[in-house]
């Protein structure tokens, strides 16, 4: 998978030019659902507000164990099975890290888009996330970058 920055540029171009994208937006009947995990309360609220402004239905949790538990709940809920369109997770959190959860998720789910946000990404971490078909977004990031990435990945898994 390409870097988040490259894809953000690509997403912006497509958002402006693709008729298929406009058609997709019109035919979507339900709000796109994002599952967000971020241990910093202020950051979590800020991200939820930004995503909700873009029309996402956001479920937010504060650590990796709750993130994995919520993913499993979605799989096992008869009305709700696997219906998250996008996962956004902090890389470093108490209990399970975002990368631990991504690794576990990929044992059965190769396709749900996962965006990993991190203030301490190094090459090894980026390689690990990309090997698991995730995308790293470095902190600090512009909120508009996150929103663009969310729109891109939630609609084009």
């Amino acid at each position, binding site marked *: 998978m390409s870097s988040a920055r490259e894809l953000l540029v690509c997403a912006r171009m497509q958002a402006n030019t693709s008729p298929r994208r406009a058609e997709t937006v019109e035919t979507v009947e339900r709000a796109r659902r994002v599952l967000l995990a971020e241990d910093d309360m202020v950051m979590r609220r800020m991200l939820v507000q930004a995503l909700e402004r873009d029309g996402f239905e956001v479920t937010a949790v504060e650590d990796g164990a709750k993130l*994995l538990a919520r993913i499993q709940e979605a*799989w096992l809920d008869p009305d709700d099975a696997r219906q998250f369109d996008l996962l956004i997770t902090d890389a470093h959190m108490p*209990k*399970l890290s975002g990368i631990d959860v991504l690794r576990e998720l990929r044992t059965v789910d190769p396709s749900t888009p996962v965006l990993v946000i991190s203030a301490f990404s190094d090459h090894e971490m980026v390689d690990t996330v990309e090997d698991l078909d995730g995308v790293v977004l470095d902190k600090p990031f512009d909120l508009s970058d996150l929103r663009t990435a969310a729109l891109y990945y939630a609609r084009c898994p």
Partner: protein
Amino acid sequence: VRELQNCIERAVALCSYETISVEDLPDRVRNARALDTASDEMSDLPRMEEVERRYIERVITLVGGNKSSAARILGYDRTTLYRKLERYGL
């Protein structure tokens, strides 16, 4: 033991000061505790494979055992579904 010996020898060779610090250790060793912690936390939750097994089982029951319908609902092709059914003993 040999792995530990190699690790310490490498740290001695590469460290900048007289004392070996955490930064001188290879990533695999530095991350070992985090991995243990992850395993502990993970043990409180079912593994995703178990969750998938339960999910497939429920869908198969809902469609009365019809594999084509189940595959469509699950989003798998039939080959993948049969592979998973075999893997999970369903």
